[in-house]
């Protein structure tokens, strides 16, 4: 009941936005809200089901974004010729060295000999790798750096990027999980946070991969371009029959296209999450979250399950990341900030109600709505505050000037108020 009421509330908020601001704004919020909901679902799986404190959401989202580039952009021909093969070779070599090191570490008996041979392997491996890699990278990055300077992608339809984004994130999660999942709570948190920073550092600095901070813009789209629609007489006619301006209609049509795609993904993910949670699998996960020692003693392989859920949740984050980059139409690594891509998602999960999938979805939609709307809200707040002051007073001027900073202030205030009235989240776990 409460669930339905709250979802209705969000619906009404969005309708109001549509009526008082514009339907385009409302749809824009819905689209990002849907993506946020998926992201929140991913985090909720890790935290709400299994108690894994992943604060590296940003990293997985970014990997999803990378997938969008790698899948969607056309390959840069000259770049492949210049050194694409060699880069792949270098990377494969690097991976082989690491695998060899792990093999040695496992096979040899501990002692000075092992340490030395490991060290030797790694040092030699590193030098050779850099030799192979650096030259190739330089060559690739030299190909028209202002425009390309990277390898490009596969030139496939961008929708393929979504599963690929999930896979990429899952792969990263596997590696991270194998190494760091032994850590408890806050220690795992900071490790994932660190790893996310590393992912972003790679995206920012490996220009051959995705142009680094120079950004990739103009990603292909899964939906038609507004301009094309505006020029399509059929469409214009149809718009007119609804009494709509073709420009407005076109951008709404495009947004609705995204909405449909995102909604479809959300429904599938949600169904899978719900089915899993309501089954013995979900019960087992809750048991593990409650008491790992006891779960282990009851025959549950805690490590494996943690890894499983970590990979799954991260894959969902990667999926959402790819969707987001698709919606943006561009990859801008420097825009990946922990505040926006990790902590805000956490706010969504907790405000929504951790452990509850519907809560996560609600939190995603609601918090995103607020994140966008606190700007005018903050402005309003300041006008309200300063309305009593005499026109032209220095304080009033100062207050109005600071209005922009009320954005985060308002966000904080709203957050605190919501949590005060729903400390276990809006839709608590059972």
């Amino acid at each position, binding site marked *: 009941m409460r669930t339905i009421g709250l979802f209705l509330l969000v619906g009404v908020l969005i309708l109001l936005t549509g009526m008082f601001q514009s339907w385009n704004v409302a749809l824009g919020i819905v689209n990002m809200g849907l993506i946020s909901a998926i992201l929140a679902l991913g985090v909720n799986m890790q935290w709400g089901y299994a108690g894994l*404190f992943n604060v590296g959401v940003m990293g997985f989202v970014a990997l999803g974004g990378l997938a969008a580039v790698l899948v969607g952009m056309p390959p840069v021909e000259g770049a492949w010729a210049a050194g694409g093969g060699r880069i792949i070779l270098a990377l494969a070599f690097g991976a082989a060295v690491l695998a060899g090191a792990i093999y040695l570490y496992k096979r040899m008996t501990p002692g000075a000999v092992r340490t030395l041979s490991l060290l030797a392997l790694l040092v030699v491996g590193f030098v050779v790798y850099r030799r192979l890699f650096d030259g190739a990278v330089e060559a690739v990055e030299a190909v028209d750096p202002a425009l390309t300077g990277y390898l490009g992608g596969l030139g496939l339809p961008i929708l393929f990027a979504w599963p690929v984004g999930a896979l990429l994130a899952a792969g990263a999660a596997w590696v991270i999980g194998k190494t*760091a999942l032994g850590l408890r709570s806050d*220690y795992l948190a900071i*490790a994932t946070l660190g*790893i996310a920073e590393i992912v972003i*550092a790679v995206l920012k600095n490996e220009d051959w991969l995705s142009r680094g901070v120079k950004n990739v813009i103009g990603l292909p789209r899964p939906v038609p371009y507004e301009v094309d629609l505006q020029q399509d007489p059929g469409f214009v006619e149809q718009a007119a029959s609804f009494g709509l301006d073709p420009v407005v209609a076109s951008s709404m049509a495009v947004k609705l296209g995204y909405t449909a795609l995102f909604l479809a993904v959300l429904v599938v993910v949600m169904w899978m999450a719900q089915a899993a949670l309501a089954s013995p699998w979900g019960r087992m996960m809750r048991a593990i979250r409650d008491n790992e020692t006891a779960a282990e003693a009851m025959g549950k392989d805690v490590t494996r399950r943690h890894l499983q859920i970590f990979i799954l949740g991260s894959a969902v984050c990667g999926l959402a990341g790819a969707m987001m980059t698709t919606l943006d139409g561009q990859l801008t690594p420097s825009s990946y900030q922990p505040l926006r891509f990790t902590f805000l998602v956490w706010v969504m999960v*907790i405000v929504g109600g951790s452990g509850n999938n519907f809560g996560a979805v609600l939190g995603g939609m609601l918090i995103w709505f607020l994140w966008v709307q606190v700007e005018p809200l903050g402005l309003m707040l300041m006008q309200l505050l300063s309305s009593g002051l005499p026109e032209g007073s220095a304080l009033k001027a100062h207050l109005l000037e600071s209005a922009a900073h*009320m954005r985060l202030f308002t966000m904080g205030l709203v*957050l605190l108020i919501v949590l005060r009235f729903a*400390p276990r989240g809006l839709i608590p776990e059972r």
Partner: protein
Amino acid sequence: MDFLNGLVTLLNFVVIPATAYGAQLAIGALGVTLVYGILRFSNFAHGDTMAFGTMAVILVTWGLQALGVDLGPVPTALLALPFGILITVGLVLVTDRWVYRFYRVKKVPPVLLVIVSMGVMFVYNGLTRLIIGPDDQRFDDGARFLISARDFKTWSGLDEGLALRTSQAITIVTAVAVVAALFWFLNRTRTGKSMRAFSDNEDLALLSGISPERVVAITWVIVAALACVAGTLYGLDKSFKPFTYFQLLLPIFAAAIVGGLGSPLGAIAGGFVIAYSEVILTYAWKKVLVYWLPESLEPEGLVQLLSTDYKFAVSFAILVIVLLFRPTGLFRGKAL
């Protein structure tokens, strides 16, 4: 001579900056670690508490300067510090009363407090900017250097300079003093022990007659003081800019965690681990090696292990590695 030149280079570009930065992180991390250790949550508002405290100090400093007060070579801000601390304590206590207490009484799980502290962070963030604006503020006066690079060169006759800033020296001394005091307080005094007892088992603390509100209040007072001191020292050394203080949050958390959450000694150690790993791994060792190695062995390249592009990533990689070998940090923190 060559050896000395090499040594001075090393000191000037590695040891001194890393130590000072490490100490800055450490004092910040102490605040974080204390909240974690006693109130049991990761306080995201700490960076912005530091910013707020620094702002208070700056405003008082300006006031003092306007009155014509100055301390000679020592920055006036130090005189303003006690006032700043008072203001910060006030803010933090009010926050506790209005915000955190509600959740404490409800015994909510720690993550919720983490999220609540994010809300507080946003509010402080707006507050600071509302009062002093988002801009850079310089407020250090007095002598900037204890030893400046140029003076050192003339004095020693070496090719390389060595610089030590007043603020760096103050920071290092403060860090050591504060951690010693805190360690003593928590482990030797009755109040300190009762705070640890409270964090360990709240109900049982109650049964021993320990007043929770008192413990919490003392904790916040200390934390606010630490935040104010850390922020001010940092601002003196670099400059004050609210946005940077938010950015400091990550390395501060990293430091607190590598050291072992809840452990004051750990916070100090963590600060240095983070600072040193950043500097050492990305330092181009060529210059030092040129002085120290015979000519035949002189390196061709820069002898830089990793480019500074990855500076931030490096410190986090170190952190992850440390945690893999010591899963609850260097000083065995809590795993809640």
